[in-house]
């Protein structure tokens, strides 16, 4: 169905920074920090509230959360669900779009962090249930739907509502001139020619049982090379002559604009992938009107229509809300003119005016990003500095504890974010926790070594004159360690601001959102509109902390 974009988890290296616990924090700073922490709370608490079934019974507008995976069609369908629910029910709809792949989305749904998202029956069968694809009548669309319906209901009380009317299946495509030159019409033809062909497949396709592993086994395929690649880049690679074989999706808008030939699945390997809303049973019990509203979309969309809509997103650079509105209006489900002019066809628009046009979103993303980073950093300081001080008094345990915390740094950021989902759902809360965990090590290490190595002669003299070790820690070691601790905090801050871009993968928003979406669309300008502000934000945060460091630095030391 879709390629999952695996974001590389780049994290900054560095060493250093923090505030000193011994002297009072500047009051305005404290106020800002607390305000930021508070700002995060409502965000963090949504997943749990949203799933509460009796919210409507309490007489207030109940809220449901619609999720999606991180590719255009999934986002578009989710946006259509959301708009339809807003128009046809009294529900308040929250969007958590762009979650990183099937696993994340499904876990979020099962855990109640989201109430529904668009899924594909074949994906449900192969990826979620882990069933072998079944060629023949056993594997036709109706049988597949029946089977996933039965099993999802029994295992998890999750409901597949009526399919939307189109399939978005995996297919295998080759450039037309290659197909003609080598006489390729079916995947069996391809299997004979594959030995010297280079494949470019999506990350998820390479791993999924209903992707390359099963396909290769069924057809005896063996390529000269297989390059896992991000969805939009595959098309570019093929156009540039760097890839010969791609996995594509039936409704991909790019099929029309790239000169590709889809090869027939002559052994019926790929299961049917009907798109349908997948909804929690608890949500349907509490808000039955959801099923009624979404049934309006049953069978309403065909593959041709979806290709057109996807094309508007992929090549036209339009955004989901507008495209979704048009699609619903065209179906007569939403008032409004069916074709609000393609808003941002965006040819030749400068980067500056692009940013200016998107300033409202960027400001919101930046605020989310800053709140997330600052909250994580603040929690990091609140935990790591006292822990570092405690370890100075228990040095025998120090190395063990610090090494254990250092281990958290070796977990790739994206993996850590994914681990948070079963525990904390999706959205800002798990992102906050993951970022907090990353911030601990640099602050802890610098705090501990800073207080441990603080002016040994001065400390020894004070102890010899009858100062207690505890007091020496508070009055001598900690103030003298302030520059070192601050260096650790600054390292953690820059890392946190950078890593927070990955939080978009689990629906936490922030400046990673344009980056993730831009990666999906291979839209450099959109990527930059997230990456450049994120970099500037990191510099700004570092500069602010440098100022703070200067103020906290005790007098009389260099």
């Amino acid at each position: 169905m879709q390629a999952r974009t695996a974001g590389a988890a780049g994290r900054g290296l560095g060493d250093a920074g923090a505030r000193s616990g011994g002297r009072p924090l500047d009051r305005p700073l404290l106020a800002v920090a607390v305000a930021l922490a508070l700002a995060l709370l409502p965000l963090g608490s949504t997943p749990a509230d949203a799933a509460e079934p009796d919210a409507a019974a309490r007489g207030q507008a109940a809220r449901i959360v619609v999720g999606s995976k991180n590719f255009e069609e999934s986002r578009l369908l989710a946006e259509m669900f959301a708009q339809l629910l807003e128009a046809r029910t009294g529900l308040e709809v929250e969007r958590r779009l762009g979650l990183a792949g099937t696993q994340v989305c499904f876990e979020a749904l099962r855990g109640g962090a989201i109430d529904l998202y668009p899924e594909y029956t074949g994906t449900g069968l192969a990826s979620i249930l882990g069933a072998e694809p079944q060629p023949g009548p056993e594997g036709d669309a109706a049988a597949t739907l029946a089977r996933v319906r039965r099993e999802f209901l029994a295992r998890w009380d999750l409901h597949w509502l009526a399919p939307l009317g189109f399939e978005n299946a995996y297919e295998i495509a080759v450039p037309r001139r290659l197909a003609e030159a080598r006489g390729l019409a079916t995947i069996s033809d391809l299997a004979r020619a594959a030995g010297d062909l280079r494949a470019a497949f999506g990350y998820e396709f390479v791993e999924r049982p209903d992707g390359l592993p099963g396909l290769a086994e069924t057809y005896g395929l063996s390529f000269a090379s297989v390059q896992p690649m991000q969805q939009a880049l595959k098309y570019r690679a093929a156009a540039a002559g760097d890839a010969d074989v791609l996995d594509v999706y039936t409704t991909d808008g790019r099929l029309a604009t790239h000169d590709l030939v889809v090869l027939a699945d002559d052994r019926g390997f790929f299961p049917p992938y009907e798109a349908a809303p997948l909804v929690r049973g608890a949500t349907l019990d509490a808000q039955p009107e959801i099923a009624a509203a979404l049934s309006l979309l049953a069978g309403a969309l065909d593959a041709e229509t979806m290709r057109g809509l996807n094309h508007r997103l992929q090549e036209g650079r339009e955004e989901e809300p507008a495209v979704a509105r048009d699609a619903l209006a065209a179906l007569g489900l939403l008032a409004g003119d069916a074709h609000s002019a393609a808003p941002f066809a965006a040819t030749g628009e400068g980067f500056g005016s692009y940013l200016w046009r998107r300033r409202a979103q960027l400001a919101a993303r930046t605020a989310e990003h800053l709140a997330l980073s600052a909250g994580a950093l603040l929690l990091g300081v609140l935990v790591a500095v006292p822990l570092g001080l405690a370890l100075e008094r228990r040095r025998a345990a120090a190395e063990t504890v610090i090494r254990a915390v250092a281990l958290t740094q070796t977990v790739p950021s994206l993996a850590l974010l994914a681990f948070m989902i079963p525990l904390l759902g999706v959205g800002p809360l798990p992102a906050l926790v993951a970022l907090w965990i990353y911030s601990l090590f640099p602050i802890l290490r610098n705090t501990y070594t800073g207080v441990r190595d603080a002016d040994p002669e001065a400390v020894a003299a004070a102890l010899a004159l009858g100062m207690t070790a505890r007091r020496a820690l508070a009055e001598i070691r900690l103030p003298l360690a302030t520059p070192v601790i601050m260096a650790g905090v600054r390292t953690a801050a820059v890392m946190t601001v950078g890593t927070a871009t990955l939080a978009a993968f689990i629906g936490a928003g922030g400046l990673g959102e344009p980056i993730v979406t831009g990666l999906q669309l291979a839209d450099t300008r959109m990527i930059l509109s997230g990456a450049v502000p994120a970099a500037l934000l990191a510099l700004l945060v570092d500069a602010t902390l440098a100022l703070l460091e200067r103020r906290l630095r005790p007098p009389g030391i260099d």
Partner: protein
Amino acid sequence: MMTEPNPAGAEPMLEARAAAVVYAGGVRALDGVDLAVAAGETVALVGESGSGKSTLLRLFNRTAEATAGEVLVGGEPVADRDPVALRRGIGYVPQEGGLIPHWTVRRNVELVPRLSGWERGRRRERAGEALALVGLDPATFGDRHPRSLSGGQRQRVAIARALAADPPVVLLDEPFGALDALTRLALQDEFLALERRLGKTMLLVTHDLDEAFRLGDRVAVLKDGRIRQAAPPAELAARPADDYVRSLLELRRAREAG
């Protein structure tokens, strides 16, 4: 050879009886030392690095612990005392001053009075007096940080800090060791004047025999964790107890001649 009888005959202010320090690895830092320092007396401990002189000094404020034998201050075994309370009653001057860098001179000098809970006015007054004792004007130096002082000034502040709470005993661990020769001489002169004026009991560690002879009422020579001889300078010079002490004295004479 062994400890001289306590000249004053009264109960010694500081006393070590067969004190030994053996580290976990079996290294003997001190190997059965007897030493008694009378009230008001200054004893200089000399010896090369590793002779155990600093370890012996540190037994008295329990910054090192005897693994055998007994250590007494004011007639009371230090092992029975709370180390923190013990230390607040004993002045201490380390080699590098050990001033707290982010505190002003005045705050450094007020350290022990503050730890002992003196009220602010009395602290101020005593700090001023202590600074004046070591020849520093409190108005000029009180608000400065150690970094802005010369090495000699820093050592003076360290001495003022040791004296601020007016302890009966002061331990000095190579207090002038890191200073240039001229500054060292000047400080030694002032130290002598202070010694006479204040009548404190002092234990002074030095590797410099000249300094030991100038400042000590008695000089104790340590080697390999044992005291080879403890005697007034004149007696030590006249009757070295063994070859090691003699060789030290000859070295000193040779240096004076050169």
